[in-house]
C-alpha cells in the first residue's frame, strides 16, 4: 500500500479507500481535510454552488462508526465526493445552475445519490454547471462561472465545469457528472482530469434533472482512471425507476482499470475527428498518445465515420426538441421560482408562467427552448426532428461499422485547450463546436472517456484524448485508459496535475 500524502486532498480516491479500510485514517479526517480545502480555495475557483459541511461530516462519522462496528463496507466507503447540481439530493438544495430552482429543496434523492449514500460516500456539496447543463464553459450558470485551476481566467469546461474544477483544485477526490453531448468529457479534457460517459442506460437517470432524455447519461469523474472506475462501479447498474436503464450487471470496469492491458487490442483513429479546427498542441499530444498505445502492444488503424460531420447539426435539433419539452415543467405552479408579471392586477396562471419563465431562464436556455419548440412544430417536424433522427441512425451505423473492425475508437476529446472566460459567450456556434468530437457517442448511446494526454505546447494547458467503445463494453475504456495513463504518467514523471499552479494564494488570482 502506498503511503498517504500529508495533505489528504492530494491523495487518490483508491489510496484513501485503502487507508480508510486499513484504519490508518478516518472518513471524518478525510472529509474535514476537503472541507478545509474548499474553504481555502473555492473563493477563487467557484466550483461549488452549495457546500454541505454538516451533512458531509455526519455521513463521514456514520461510516466511521459502521467500520468500527465491523460492518462490511463498499470499496469507496468514507471517501468524500462532490455531486453535480443536476442530481436531486433530498434535503440539500438542487438548482441546476438556474434561478428557476433557486431555493428548491428536493424531497427525494436521485438513484445515483442513493447509491452514493448506501456506499458510504460523504457528499461534500453540489457543483456548479451551465444552466440545466446547457453549455461548455459554466459561463451559463446563473450563479457565475467556475474557473479553471490551471488558469483562473479560463473556463473549466462545461456543463460539468464545477465537477472538473473541483477535482483539478483538489476540493474533492471524486465527483459525479452528466454528459449529454460532452459535459463530462470536455471538462475533464481541459482540466487534465478523467471522466467517463457510460453506455446510455448504464447509470440510472432517475433524479437527474433532464436536459435531453435520449442523450443524458450520468457518469463518474476522477483524477485517475482507477478512481473513475471505482466510482463507475458504485453509480452504475439497473434501476427499475428508469425504464431506459440496462438490466445487466455493471461491466467489469475496475478489473479492466487494474489490468491496464491493451496488448492485441485494435484501436481505430477516427479520421473525421482531429483535422481542421483542432489546435496543433492538442493534435500533437493526441498523436503521441496513439504512438504510445502502439508501443504498448495495440494495433492502430485509421477508421472513417463519414456521417459524423452531420452529428452536430442533428444534435442541435434533437437536444433542443427534448429540452423544450423537459423544461416545460418549470412553470411556477408547484415549486421553484414564481414571478408575478409587472403591471398586471390579477394575473392568470398563464401570465405567471410566462413572467416566471422569462425571469427564471437564462439566454442559452431560452435559445434552446425556442429552437426545440420550432423544430417540433407541425409542418417542420419531419424536416427537422425527423431528419435528425435519421442522421442519428446513420451515426449509430458508422459506429457499428467501425466496431466491426476495431475494439475501440480514439480522438482528441475537445478541439482546443481551455479558452478564456467570455471568449465564446457571444458566439453560440463557436461554443457548440467544443463538443464536435464528443457528441457522436451521445447520439449513438456508446460509452466514452476522456483522460489527460498532456499539455499543449503553445499555451501549456491540458489536452485530452477520448476513447470510445461499443455499447455495454465500457470496460474497454478502462483497459485503454489505464494503460495509456500509466505510460504517460511514467513519461511525465508523475501525475500531470502536479504541474498545475498552486491555489490558495490571493496573488494567484490574476486580475484580482
Amino acid at each position, binding site marked *: 500500500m502506498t503511503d498517504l500524502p500529508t495533505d489528504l486532498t492530494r491523495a487518490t480516491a483508491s489510496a484513501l479507500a485503502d487507508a480508510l479500510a486499513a484504519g490508518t485514517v478516518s472518513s471524518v479526517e478525510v472529509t474535514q481535510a476537503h472541507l478545509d480545502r474548499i474553504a481555502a480555495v473555492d473563493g477563487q475557483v467557484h466550483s461549488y454552488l452549495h457546500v454541505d459541511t454538516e451533512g458531509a461530516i455526519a455521513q463521514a462519522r456514520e461510516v466511521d462508526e459502521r467500520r468500527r462496528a465491523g460492518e462490511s463496507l463498499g470499496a469507496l466507503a468514507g471517501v468524500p465526493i462532490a455531486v453535480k447540481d443536476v*442530481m436531486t439530493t433530498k434535503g440539500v438544495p438542487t438548482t441546476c445552475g438556474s434561478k428557476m430552482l433557486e431555493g428548491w429543496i*428536493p424531497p427525494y434523492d436521485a438513484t445515483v445519490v442513493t447509491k452514493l449514500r448506501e456506499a458510504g460516500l460523504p457528499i461534500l456539496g453540489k457543483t456548479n454547471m451551465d444552466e440545466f447543463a446547457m453549455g461548455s464553459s459554466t459561463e451559463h450558470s446563473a450563479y457565475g462561472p467556475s474557473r479553471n485551476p490551471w488558469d483562473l481566467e479560463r473556463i473549466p469546461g462545461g456543463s460539468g465545469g464545477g465537477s472538473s474544477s473541483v477535482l483539478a483544485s483538489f476540493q474533492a477526490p471524486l465527483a459525479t457528472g452528466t454528459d449529454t453531448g460532452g459535459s463530462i468529457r470536455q471538462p475533464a479534457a481541459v482540466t487534465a482530469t478523467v471522466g467517463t460517459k457510460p453506455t446510455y442506460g448504464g447509470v440510472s437517470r432517475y433524479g437527474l434533472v*433532464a436536459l435531453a432524455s435520449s442523450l443524458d447519461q450520468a457518469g463518474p469523474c476522477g483524477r485517475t482512471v482507477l478512481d473513475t472506475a471505482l466510482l463507475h462501479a458504485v453509480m452504475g447498474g439497473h434501476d427499475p425507476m428508469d425504464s*431506459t436503464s440496462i438490466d445487466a450487471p455493471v461491466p467489469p470496469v475496475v478489473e479492466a482499470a487494474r489490468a491496464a492491458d491493451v496488448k492485441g487490442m485494435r484501436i481505430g483513429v477516427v479520421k473525421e475527428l482531429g483535422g481542421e479546427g483542432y489546435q496543433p498542441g492538442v493534435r500533437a499530444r493526441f498523436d503521441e498518445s496513439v504512438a504510445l498505445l502502439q508501443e504498448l502492444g495495440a494495433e492502430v488503424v485509421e477508421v472513417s465515420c463519414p456521417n459524423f460531420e452531420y452529428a452536430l447539426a442533428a444534435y442541435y435539433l434533437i437536444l433542443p426538441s427534448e429540452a423544450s419539452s423537459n423544461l*416545460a415543467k418549470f412553470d411556477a405552479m408547484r415549486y421553484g421560482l414564481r414571478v408575478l408579471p409587472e403591471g398586471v392586477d390579477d394575473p392568470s396562471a*398563464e401570465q405567471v408562467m410566462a413572467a416566471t419563465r422569462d425571469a427564471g431562464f437564462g439566454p442559452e436556455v431560452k435559445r434552446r427552448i425556442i429552437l426545440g419548440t420550432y423544430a417540433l412544430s407541425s409542418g417542420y417536424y419531419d424536416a427537422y426532428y425527423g431528419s435528425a433522427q435519421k442522421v442519428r441512425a446513420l451515426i449509430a451505423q458508422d459506429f457499428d461499422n467501425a466496431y466491426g473492425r476495431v475494439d475501440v475508437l480514439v480522438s482528441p476529446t475537445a478541439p482546443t485547450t481551455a479558452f478564456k472566460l467570455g471568449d465564446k459567450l457571444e458566439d453560440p456556434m463557436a461554443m457548440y463546436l467544443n463538443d464536435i468530437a464528443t457528441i457522436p457517442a451521445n447520439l449513438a448511446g456508446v460509452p466514452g472517456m476522456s483522460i489527460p494526454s498532456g499539455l499543449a505546447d503553445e499555451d501549456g494547458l491540458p489536452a485530452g484524448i477520448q476513447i470510445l467503445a461499443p455499447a455495454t463494453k465500457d470496460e474497454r475504456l478502462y483497459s485503454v485508459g489505464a494503460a495509456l495513463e500509466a505510460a504517460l504518467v511514467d513519461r511525465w514523471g508523475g501525475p500531470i496535475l502536479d504541474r498545475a499552479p498552486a491555489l490558495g494564494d490571493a496573488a494567484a488570482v490574476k486580475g484580482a
Partner: protein
Amino acid sequence: MSTATADAVMDYDEAMAKFDPVMGLEVHVELHTATKMFCGCPAEFGAEPNSQVCPVCLGLPGALPVVNEKAVESAIRIGLALNCEIAEWCRFARKNYFYPDMPKNFQTSQYDEPIAYNGHLDVELEDGTVYRVEIERAHMEEDTGKSLHIGGATGRIHGADHSLVDYNRAGIPLIEIVTKPMTGAGERAPEVAKAYVSALRDLLRALDVSDVKMEQGSMRCDANVSLRAKAGDPTSPEQLAVPLGTRTETKNVNSLRSVERAVRYEISRHAAILDGGGSILQETRHWHEDTGITTSGRVKSDAEDYRYFPEPDLVPVAPTRELVEALRGTLPENPAARRKRLQSDWGYSDLEMRDVVNAGAVELIEQTVAAGASAGAAKKWWLGEPSRRANAEAQDIVTYAAGLGLTPAHIAELDGLVVSGRLNDSMARQVLDGVLAGEGTPTAVADARGLELVQDDGALEAAVDKVIEANPDVAAKIRDGKLQAAGALIGQVMKEMKGQADAGKARELILAKLQ
C-alpha cells in the same frame, strides 16, 4: 370567450329533412388499476386532495415514468373486445401544452402508434336494430390533475377568484377510444350515440377494467358532430358520397342521456346556421346539462400545436403475440350475446328483456335467479318499487340498491316467502318497503311487522261463509257459472281477514262452496 346567450336551433325533424348527420365519439375511460399509469401511487377515487402523489406524478424535476404493465394489459383487452388489431410495437408520445393541472406541461399519451386500432362494436338500438360502430383506435395515456375554480358563478375558470388543483388524478391510466366517422345513422344519430356509449360502458364493465361511472368522471365522452347536405337515404351511396361538413367537438358530455341530448342539440344548431347560409366554426363546445345547450369553447383554428414526439423516457411497448392470445382468452362473454342467452334462459319476451336492460337490472336479476328466485319474480320485484325509486333519485338501480343495502339475496328471500305461502303479494310489497327503509332482511321485516298469511283454514272458511251470506246476488252469479265474479268475493274475504289471507285458497274455497 364563451357566449352566454343560446344559439338559434332548427326543429329536429326539419333539420333531418335537409341534412345528414355524421358523428365521431371520443370516450375516455379511467382504468381501475391499483396504481397509476407511470408510478406506484394508488389510483383510487375520492381520497384527500393531493394525498396520492409522488415525484413522478407531480412531475418533480428528475423524476421518470415507468409503464404500468397491468394498464397495458387492460388496454389490450379493451382493444381485443372492440375487435381491434393490437400493435406489435408502439410508443408513447408527448403531447405538449401548458396547463396548471398537468404537472409536466406535457401529457404522456400515444399519437401515431396506438396500442389498438381498426375495430368495431355492434350496437343494438331499443327496437333491436343493430348499428356497427367502426373503431379508429384505442390508445393509452395518463389523466391530468383536477382543477377546482373557486368563486365566480359558473365554476369555470373565467370569473373565478382562485383555483385549486388536486393531483391525485394526475397519472391515472386512461384509455381513449375513438370511433371512425359514424355515418348512415340518419335521424337516429342521437340514439345511436347513446346506444354506443351505453354498449361501450357495458363492455368495459364486463371486462372489469374500469368503474365506468360517468358521474364520477371515470368515463367521459366528447361528441363530434357535423352535418352535410341530405342526398338520399342515410346509407345510400349518394349520401355517403357527400363530403363531410365542418365539425364541432362537444366536451365532457357526462351521462348517457346527455350524449343523446347534446348530439341532438348540435344537429339542430348546425342546421340552423347552415340553413341560414352560415358556416360552422370548427371549435370545441361546452355542454350544459341544466339548460340543455352548448356554448362556444376554444376555436380550433387557434388551437395549440401539441408538438407531439416520441416519449424518450419510455421504451416501446411490444406485447408478444403469446401475451395477446393469453389476454384474448380472458375476455368475458360479449354483453350483447350474453343478453340474448339470458333472455332465452329466463323466457322473457323481447319487450320484457328490453325493459330489464333499460333499467340496468340484468346483473341484479341474474344474481337474484342464482340466489333461487324465479326469473319472473326477480324481474317483477326489481322493476317495481326499487326501479321506480332509483329513477326518481336519478340513479342507476345498481348504485341505488347498493346504497340502500338491498341485495339480490334479499329479493330471492322475499320471493321465497311468497312461494312458500307465508306472504301474499301485497304483504310482500310491504316487506320490501321495510327492507328499503333499512329495517332488515325480508324475514326480519315480516317478523317485526307481524306479516303472515293466516294458515288457519277454519278462520278462512268462516270468513268465506260470512261473505257468501252477505252477497247472495254475487253467489248466485257464480253458481250460474260466472266464475269471474269470484273476484269480488275474494276481495271481501281479504278485507275480513285484514289482508292476512292467501287469496288463492280463498278462491278455491268460494268456488268449492258455490259449485
